[in-house]
């Protein structure tokens, strides 16, 4: 994975992608703002959501054991996976045992995180994506750009084009209006749903007290996956645990309004273990760590684990709106990704270290977060960790050399004035049309992700001396 600034470059140059993203995020942002403005108790709900999330994390070990006991008593099986490889092994083993050649997937970030598709493909099992956006991304051999609207970077014409090619039954004259595309996806997947024997899904919440799994969705593809097959495998991070069933009264109000701007999404499903005569005969819950306990150990950074996956922070983020999701890496995108991914994977690599800087720190994400994750606060905290992790290197990083030089220069007014004068002259030589696109040498890193306005011909101090002295 390249550094954020480098990965963002192609996206910034792609005007079609930027137009599509701007449209999608503006839609979602407007809907969510209206939905949050409606209930008089919205701030009370956010405060409760924050506190429940904190409580869930501070006693996570107890809640996980309760959850395991409750799921098992209800006829389900709980598996533990310390990392992605272990989760892949568990799921692949379960699918093999079922002898299914195809599994249905209601896409979730967790399934992407563990790279399940590739692992099952190697085991000779095809994974069928079932949500419209995920289907489009798969057909386009593409990467999702938004967790709720994976095909947000494609416009309707692009999606219609993909469907016409991959779904001969839809006809070569399939129109590109959203209703027609939804109908085509429905027809294409129907037969597969009716024949499926195994499905893999994520979960939005896991209730420790009762062992209940909860899935919130709009299309019904998750309902299909969790209802029709014989075997249901659910892969969920340990951060999805909420302590009690009553806590759902808070999250069922917060999540739909913050994510799609619905008072309630069309469908919410919950189930506890297995129910004779209704739904799958076998239910497997795979609990995934994969770096979450590392994040949990950071008292500031652990706030990111409260995330309920609404994507409100992406839809208001000026950086995300221009770059799309891909530069953030393959799984968690936008502002929440910028704080979650480096914690899950550590900040040692250059790519991870670049993520906390993929922000203007404008704070819009913190304002809309339904569980009050202070994303800018965590970004700044992580920037500190990045700097600390480099402080120990034998050769000091360029920023540090620069900052030390700056400290020396600014320690003396005459020195400062002289450097300013000379610097201004050089900077103006570098500028074109009032902007500097690239600074030379070590300073170049700073202009990698931004242009610099050319400095004025005369500094304020010089002007003051000339006119007032």
């Amino acid at each position: 994975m390249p550094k954020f600034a480098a990965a963002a470059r192609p996206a910034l140059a792609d005007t079609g992608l930027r137009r599509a993203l701007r449209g999608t995020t503006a839609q979602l942002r407007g809907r969510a703002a209206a939905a949050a403005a409606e209930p008089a108790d919205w701030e009370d709900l956010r405060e409760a959501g924050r506190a429940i999330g904190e409580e869930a994390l501070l006693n996570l070990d107890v809640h996980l054991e309760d959850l395991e006991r409750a799921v098992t008593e209800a006829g389900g099986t709980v598996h533990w996976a310390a990392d992605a490889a272990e989760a892949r092994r568990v799921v692949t083993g379960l699918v093999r045992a079922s002898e299914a050649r195809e599994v249905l997937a209601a896409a979730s970030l967790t399934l992407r995180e563990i790279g399940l598709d590739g692992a099952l493909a190697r085991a000779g099992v095809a994974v069928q994506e079932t949500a419209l956006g995920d289907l489009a991304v798969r057909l386009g051999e593409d990467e999702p750009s938004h967790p709720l609207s994976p095909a947000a970077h494609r416009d309707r014409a692009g999606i219609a084009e993909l469907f016409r090619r991959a779904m001969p039954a839809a006809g070569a004259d399939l129109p590109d209006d959203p209703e027609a595309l939804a109908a085509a996806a429905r027809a294409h997947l129907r037969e597969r749903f009716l024949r499926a024997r195994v499905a893999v899904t994520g979960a939005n919440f896991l209730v420790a007290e009762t062992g209940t799994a909860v899935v919130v969705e709009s299309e019904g593809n998750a309902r299909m996956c969790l209802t029709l097959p014989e075997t249901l495998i659910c892969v969920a991070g340990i951060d999805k645990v909420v302590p009690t069933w009553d806590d759902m009264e808070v999250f069922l109000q917060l999540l739909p309004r913050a994510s799609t701007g619905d008072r309630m999404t069309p469908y919410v499903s919950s189930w506890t273990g297995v129910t004779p005569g209704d739904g799958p005969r076998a239910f497997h819950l795979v609990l995934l760590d994969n770096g979450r306990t590392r994040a949990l150990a950071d008292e500031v950074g652990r706030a990111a684990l409260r995330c309920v996956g609404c994507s409100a922070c992406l839809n208001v983020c000026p950086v995300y709106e221009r770059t799309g999701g891909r530069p953030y890496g393959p799984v968690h995108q936008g502002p929440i990704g910028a704080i979650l991914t480096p914690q899950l994977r550590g900040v040692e690599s250059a790519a991870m270290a670049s993520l906390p800087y993929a922000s203007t720190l404008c704070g819009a994400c913190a304002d809309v977060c339904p569980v009050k994750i202070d994303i800018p606060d965590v970004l700044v905290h992580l920037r500190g960790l990045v700097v600390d992790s480099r402080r120990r290197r034998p050769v000091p990083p360029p920023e540090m050399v620069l900052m030390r030089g700056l400290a020396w220069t600014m320690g003396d007014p005459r020195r400062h004035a002289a450097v300013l004068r000379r610097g201004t002259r050089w900077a103006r030589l570098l500028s074109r049309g009032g902007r500097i696109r690239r600074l030379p040498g070590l300073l170049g890193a700073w202009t990698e992700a931004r242009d610099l306005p050319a400095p004025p011909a005369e500094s304020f101090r010089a002007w003051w001396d000339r006119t007032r002295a």
Partner: protein
Amino acid sequence: MTAREEMLRRVREALGGSRGAHPPVPRGYARRLTGPQAATRADVVALFTERVADNRAAVRHVGADELGTAVAAALWGREAKRIAVPADLPFGWLAELDGVRALADTPALDLDALAAVDGVVTGCAAAVARTGTVVLDGGRAQGRRALTLVPGYHLCVVHADQIVGTVPEAVTRLDPARPLTWISGPSATHGVEGVRAEGVHGPLHLEVLVVED
């Protein structure tokens, strides 16, 4: 060490001494509807009706004695010929059906049969006014989850006394041990340009009959 022991050990190590007592969850949010919108029972029912319509579902009020006629009229309106119903649907609901064949889900219909019917008629366990939601829990007159998922049209009968004001009231009433499905309007996607489009996998049409007893 098993993955289970390893993960629990990591969690305990990560939390270290940092847990201890923390303040209780502030639950100052509204548990019930208040204000002019919910002064009386009739207001709560009216709010439910308005919000169901907002969710792009059809909704109608009927008296208890007109229910059979209303169910039949709704099915005729959709030109339904064959429908599926839970085995324990009250007989009176289907008493006026003429020209519509109702297949009881006992023994369980296979999925192809479910996919071939023109619709399904069920009751519900609870309904939420603030969000325009009906909740099914597999109890009386509701059947298993596949019934209300596979057919393209779902007619749901809600008795006025099943309607509560808020999500907290519904959560308190429902038993998490049962499989629950909260339904707020027809299946919808935002997959294309973030625009809401109806109908991908679940029922394309939801119709709600509110019975005033």
